[in-house]
């Protein structure tokens, strides 16, 4: 009985946060709703015995994704309250679409294949959640695991390529020029006299090449 109550609590929290997200005019407020949603979702995951996943959710979503959202919101200088609201024109069609989808989902969940009463298997003698995940993830799902790393790498490179812009006046390293430098243009042998140092003597052969953009 108690887990049911806790489930109801977390589910209510998630739904409240979701409502805040879709109702907020100010994205900062939507951010707040997202925090509420994901904290409650982490609680729900832990209730379902997925401790590792719940903590991962807090780390990834609240630690990384929320901060990323806030960064973008800070860098974007937009008056959010001045944005045009054209929601009314699409309201009937949108409500019909969403309502039909919700009805289908709920009918399928309650009267379809999934409505068979599945009892929870006894959780005795099971290793810890993290041990279970590790045992399966690095054996059966090793290839998808590495592929997910590839997905993250692609996303990182893609984000950098998308947002990078070459600005004039910024000097960049030209590896080709560095490697192609010869000894004659890069090195000068001098023999400074005692007590005088190099003085105004400069390198004879060295001429600065034009900086490539």
């Amino acid at each position: 009985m108690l887990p049911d109550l806790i489930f109801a609590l977390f589910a209510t929290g998630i739904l409240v946060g979701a409502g805040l997200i879709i109702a907020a005019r100010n994205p900062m407020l939507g951010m707040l709703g997202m925090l509420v949603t994901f904290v409650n979702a982490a609680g729900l995951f832990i209730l379902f015995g997925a401790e590792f996943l719940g903590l991962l959710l807090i780390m990834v979503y609240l630690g990384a994704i929320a901060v990323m959202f806030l960064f973008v919101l800070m860098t974007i200088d937009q008056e959010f309250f001045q944005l045009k609201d054209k929601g009314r024109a699409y309201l009937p069609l949108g409500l019909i679409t969403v309502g039909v989808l919700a009805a289908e989902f709920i009918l399928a969940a309650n009267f379809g294949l999934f409505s068979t009463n599945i009892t929870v298997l006894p959780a005795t003698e099971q290793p810890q959640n993290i041990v279970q995940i590790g045992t399966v993830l690095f054996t059966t799902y090793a290839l998808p695991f590495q592929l997910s790393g590839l997905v993250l790498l692609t996303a990182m490179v893609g984000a950098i390529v998308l947002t990078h812009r070459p600005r004039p006046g910024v000097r960049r390293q030209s590896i080709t020029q560095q490697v192609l430098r010869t000894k004659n243009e890069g090195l000068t042998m001098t023999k400074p006299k005692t007590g005088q140092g190099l003085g105004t003597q400069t390198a004879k052969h060295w001429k600065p090449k034009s900086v490539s953009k």
Partner: protein
Amino acid sequence: MFYMLTLSHVLTFSALLFTLGLAGIVLNRRNIIAILMCIELMLLAVSINLVGTSYFRADIAGQIVSMFILTVAAAELAIGLAIVTLFFRNRGTIEIDAADLMKG
């Protein structure tokens, strides 16, 4: 009155959450960032679905797939926010109606 918590309850709840996310996308005609948040909401609904099923079937595979969904969500959000930044730089706004180059 309280029922015993079954898989159907979890599935119904995640269906509600998914539909809320979709409603946010369909009904929100204001800014792109809100749409990205709603996509995150839908992905979370799918994750809850998988974790709930994993609990009731006592099978760890659901949690593994949920982890992959987390990865894909992070990647999608990184690209999405990069595109939003780019869009704002080019158009000076993050209104959805500003994205009308293809007359959609």
